[in-house]
Structure formats: C-alpha cells, structure tokens
C-alpha cells in the first residue's frame, strides 16, 4: 500500500513536471517571481518570530510588500495567459502596464508605512 502511494506520488509529480514544462517561458518567469516574493515574505516572518514584532508597522509593510507584489504578479499571469478565454481581448502589454502601475502605487504606500 505504501509503495503504491509513494509511486502514485512520484507519478503525480512526474506528470506535473512534464505538464509544467509545456508552459510558455513568460509564465514561468512570472511564477518564479511569485516564488521569490513569497520566499522573501517567509524569511521576514521567521525574523519576526525570532526578534518579536517591534516595530510592527515595519514588519507589516515588509510582509505586505512581498504579498502584494506576489498577488499582482498572479493577476498579471492570469491576464497574460493565452489559454484564458476571459482576457482574450486584453493585450499583454496593457496587462503589464497595469502590473507596473499597481506595483508603483503599492510600493508608495509601503514606503510611507515603513517609517
């Protein structure tokens, strides 16, 4: 039983990998960016766990910067993905422009809150 579950898991991972390899490069770049942002957030949470949450506003702005940019990147990925029928009419350049603008506004607020 265990053997089959582990082999099931291996088969699952293998199929996931092969499917993922088929995604276009630009989406992979965006996925990589999201992973980077979340990792940075996790490191900040670990730091907070060690030293405590003073000053709390700095901690929040750091975390929200990472999370916010990750969320925006996810939105970009949705809009740029050609298989997504909802956003067929939206050009990727327009989506990218939205991404850049929203990031800039987010980071203005983050910098203000950073203190």
């Amino acid at each position, binding site marked *: 039983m265990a053997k089959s579950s582990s082999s099931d898991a291996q088969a699952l991972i293998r199929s996931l990998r092969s499917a993922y390899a088929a995604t276009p490069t630009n989406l992979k770049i965006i996925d990589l960016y999201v992973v*980077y942002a979340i*990792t940075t957030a996790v490191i900040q949470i670990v730091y907070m766990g060690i030293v405590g949450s003073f000053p709390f506003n700095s901690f929040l702005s750091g975390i929200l910067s990472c999370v916010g940019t990750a969320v925006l990147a996810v939105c970009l990925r949705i809009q740029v993905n050609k298989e997504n029928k909802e956003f067929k009419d939206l050009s990727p*350049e*327009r989506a990218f422009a939205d991404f850049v603008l929203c990031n*800039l506004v987010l980071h203005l607020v983050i910098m203000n809150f950073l203190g």
Partner: protein
Amino acid sequence: MVPNHGSIGLRALICALLSICAAASIRPISDAHRSAALDLFVPSGGLFQSLEETYEALRTFQILGVGNFSDIGPATCPVIIDNLTSPASSPKDLFDAIRVNSILECQIGSQTFKDVAEKFQDLIKSTDKLMNFYYSILGLLHVKAQGVSVVLPDAEGVFYSIKALSQNDGRWQYDSNNAESSTCAAGIALEALAGVVSLADIELVQSKIGTIKHDIVKLFDSINSYDDGTLYFEEKHIDGSEYKGPLATTASVVRGASAFAAIVSEKLNIPGDKLVGIAKFLLSVGVPSSTKDLFNQIDSLSHIENNRISIPLILSLPSTVLSLTSKDQLEVEVTTVFGSAAPPLTVNLVRASSSDVKNNPILENQELQFDTEKNVHYLDILPLKIDIGKYTLEFEISLHDPENLNTYATGGHAHSLIFLTGLVKVDKSQIGIYDTDSESSASMLKLDFFKDDKISLVANHLQKLHLSFQLFTPLGNTIKPHQAFLKLRHESKVEHIFALESSSRQYKIILDFLALVEKFYYLSGRYDIELAVGDAAMENSFLHVLGYIDLDLPEPPERASRPPSLSVDPYARFGPKQEISHIFRAPETRPPKELSLAFLAFTLVPLGGFVIGLLTLGVNLKSFPSSSVHALFSLLFHAGIAAILLLYVLFWLKLDLFTTLKVLGLIGVFLIFVGHRTLSCLASTSAGKVKTN
C-alpha cells in the same frame, strides 16, 4: 510707545481711583510739593530728557519758587537755538523751544525769531489740525513777547477754523477727519482761541465770543464728580494708546478756560463752587510721583489761583487726629490753593456727627475763633464733652466782606473726618476657674492689667475659665473696642485665639474646657494667657500676658487629630523643591545588530535565487526593439521605473510625502508617456509577428 502710554494712563486712573478711596484729606500746596519738585525734576548735566520736560520743570520751579536755573540755562540754550534754526524741526519742537526760551531768556537774535514767526504763519495758513493751530498761535504769542512784531494773517478766518472743530457738547475735535470729540482738545482749542484774540487785537464780534462762552459753560456742565464733592473732567471716548487721565484732562480744561477768561471783558458764567470742586480734586491728588502729574497739578492750580472768575478757598485740617489726653484743639485753616491768606472770614461748625450713629449730631452750630498769630480757626472741644471716636464734621465759611464774594468762592459746606482719641480705663477685671455645676461659688481673682504680677491657675477638663472686665472712656461711657481677643498658647507653641463677647456693660468670656478638649488637640500642660484689647480711638491699646494656666486634659483617643506641625520658616516654600523622578516607558528591546544584518543578507538571497532561475529559464533580451527610436523609449521606460524606485528609497530616507508626491507626479507623467509609446510599439511589433506567423 503705545503700551507705554497705556500703562501710564492706567496708573493715572488707578491713582485717581485711590484718591477717592482715601477720604480725601486735602491740604494746600506746601513744602512737600516743593521738595517733590526738586526730587522729580532732576537734570543730568543741566539738560532734561526733552524740551517738553524742560518746560514742565522750569514752569513748576517758577510757580513754586524753587530750583535755580543757573546750570540749566547754559546747557539748554544751545539745544533751543538748534531747534529754532533747524529746518527739520516739527511745529511741536519749535513750540517747545520757544516757550522754554521765554523762561530761560537765552541770547537769540531777532532774525531767528522772525524766521520762526514766519514758519508759524505759514503753518497757520496751510493747516486744519487743532494741534498745529495751537503750536503756531501760542508760538507766535511767545515770539511777540520777545519784542518782535508779529502779525496774525486772517485772524477771523483762523478763529472760524478752530471754532469749526467744536462739537455740540462743548468738546472739540482734533481735526475734521477724527469723528471723536475730546475734552483735552477743548482745553487746547480754548487756549488757541484766546491766543488768536490777543494776537489779533481787534474787536471780534461779541457774538462770536458769546458762542465760545456758551461752549465753555456747556463743557463745565459735563463735569464729573466723586462722592466727596471733588469735580474733574474726563474723556468720554477712551482711546487706549492716547489715554490721558482725569488729572491731565482737568488741567487742560483749566488752562483753556482761564486763558479765555483772561481776554474777555466780562466774567464767564461758571459757578464758583465748580472751581472749588476742581481745586479740591487737584489738591486731593496729594504729592504726585510723576513729573507730568506734578506739572499738571501745579500749573493748573496756579491758573486757578490767579483766575478772573473766582478764587477758590480751601478749608483744611492740619491734624485730623485729636487727643483728649493732650487737650488738643480742633484747628481749621482756610487758605487759597497755594496756602496764601484768605480774606477775613468766619468758620462755622454746622454739624458734627459720629460716624457710627449718623442721624443724631453731637454738635451743632459752633463758631470757631480765629487765632491771628497762627492764622487758624480753632475750637476748644474739651469743654464740649465729646467722647472718643470717629466723627464727620461739616463746616461752613462766611466771608466778612460781601464784596469778596465776587472774587472768592467758598464752595458750600466742607466735610472732614476726624478721630478723637483718649485713654480708656479698664475696671472690675477678674478671672477665675469654676466647676461646671457651681458657677456662683467661683473664686475669682482680681486682675490689674497694668501691674506686672502674673496669675497662675490650675484647671482640668471638667472646669471652666471665666474672664470679665469693663471698659470706660474718659467721659465715663462704655466703649466697644475694635479688638478684644484672648489667646492661649501652649508650651509647644500651639496657639488658640478667642474673641470676647460684649454684653450691655462688660466684656467677658467663658471657656468651657470640656467642649474645647478636641480643639486643644488633647494637649495638657502649661498655657500662657494673653489678652489683647485695641481700638483706633484708644490711646492705650494693650497686649498683656496675664499669667498661665496648667490645664489637665484627658489622653487623646486613637483617631484624634494631631496638632498642626509648627510652620517652619515661611520662606522655605521659595527654596528648591523635592526632585521628581519621572517614570518613563521602558524602551523596547531591540535585537542585536549582527542578527539584523544577517537577516538582511538572508532577505537578499531569494533575489539571487530569482536571478539564477531566470538564467536557467533562458531569459534573453531578443525582443528588445532594435530601431533606435523604439530602443530609446524602452530605455527611458526602464529609466523612469528606476527613477521612481530611487525616489521611493529617498522618500524612506529623508523626504516627506508632499515632496515625494510632487516629484512622483512629474516622473509619473513622463513614465506614462514613455511607457505608452514603448508598449504600443511592442504591441505593434508582436501583432506584426503574429500576422506574419
């Protein structure tokens, strides 16, 4: 400058108010004023602070007959000549200089005077302000007195111009723009008008002079009065910066009215009583403590003394405290304001009433006799059997020669307050201790307050102390003194004070120790007994230590109040206070620096991972536009984003939000434009590729 005038005015107002609170004991001008003049007007090196003050000083000295001008003259004359010859002198400077010169009589050529006269004449032609008229007309008068002939151009016109500034209530305006009328201005205008008449030396139509006389009467109708009968002038509209108190205003009106009265042929219709009231007000100021007040007082009193309407006679008492013991007589002086002798007259004491019992007069209609050697009117009060106390006296002056009524003013009835003091006899004084239930069988000790033997008593808390005595005036009546207190002082310096009650014939106090146990803080021991009796009319008020009493009080219960701790030096409260230790919030513990720097490095690790991942994915820059225009825009787009991120870093480090937003707006607009171009050409390129594909 403005706050200075205001504070001076306020002080003058307070001084004037205080003068009514003190029941004005008026005395004529005396040597006290003369020495005050010498003390207040002190030149430094022969010079005073301004020419105005120089004039005030010299005029005061002249009237009082003190001071010598020998050192003032040489120092001030150059200043005067400088002012008179300088082309930049204002009318006020010229006026001050020329009137000081009329007292000092410096050596000045007649050409200078002619020039000055010309300046004044030009000013009269061109001005419409009251102060300029005043300076020029009175300046011309002074120049005329030097022997230079002056001509007042268009005297009637000038008269009319000044008269045009007058108001319905007898006051004047300073100029036609200023809507508020001022009493001071009235005095100044009257002086100026008198100057016009004496300069012009023509017969001005009597009706014109009649209107001015009418104005003066209306002005005097608006006079204010205090409760004690003194009269004064005051401004109705008080302008904070230019406030002149009642003294200055009254002085101004007196100068103006007397100057005008001097030039008209018949007397002004001002009742003599008003002049007496004004004279009393000026004297009730006492000896002023400022130079301006002293000058105003002395100058206006000298005008009153020498005026043509009527000369006031002042009734004053050299001493308001009379002693029955030393057989003092009631003495009254009647003089002019400067202390000169009055015409032959009789003083009648109309009524003397006690200040406590107002309605029944003690004395009525006593005529005072005249002592020609000492120049006083006196009354022997000893045979009149008046008791000690405070009395209000009402006097009436009657002149012997009815002709003198035209020249002198007596001012109706004069009121004065006097104290009659004497020795008070203490009789039947006794003190004793008795038990609560046996009041009648108390053993009382006789006391004599004026012998030195001390009594000693013993009592416990169940007994009472009884003290009584009688007080008699020299005439044998009982008296109720202002103070009658008994003080018991413990060895530990704790004191208790009791007021004595008065019954019909005697003063007594009964101390019930049972009721007072708690008030005495349960302190047993020796208490010193002191008795204080005093009154304003009592010459022998006393504070006697009668002796001591040993008091035996029960033990204090648990919750009894402690006696108040002795007050230490009362000035200790001004010393340094106890140090306050503030409690601050403990600062948060911060992590060690190395840990924070380590985690900074950790945070940058994912960035490295991201770059490595990108390289692994095979990121390239092939889609970067090749044509130079598009490449430029793309570069600018990236530069714009980098600039905004740099701006954010600067914002975090040192900028504030407003600056950041401003700069962000600028870069943002640029970025939008550039970005739009870049992305649109990218879009067209990719669309082209798709099409070809």
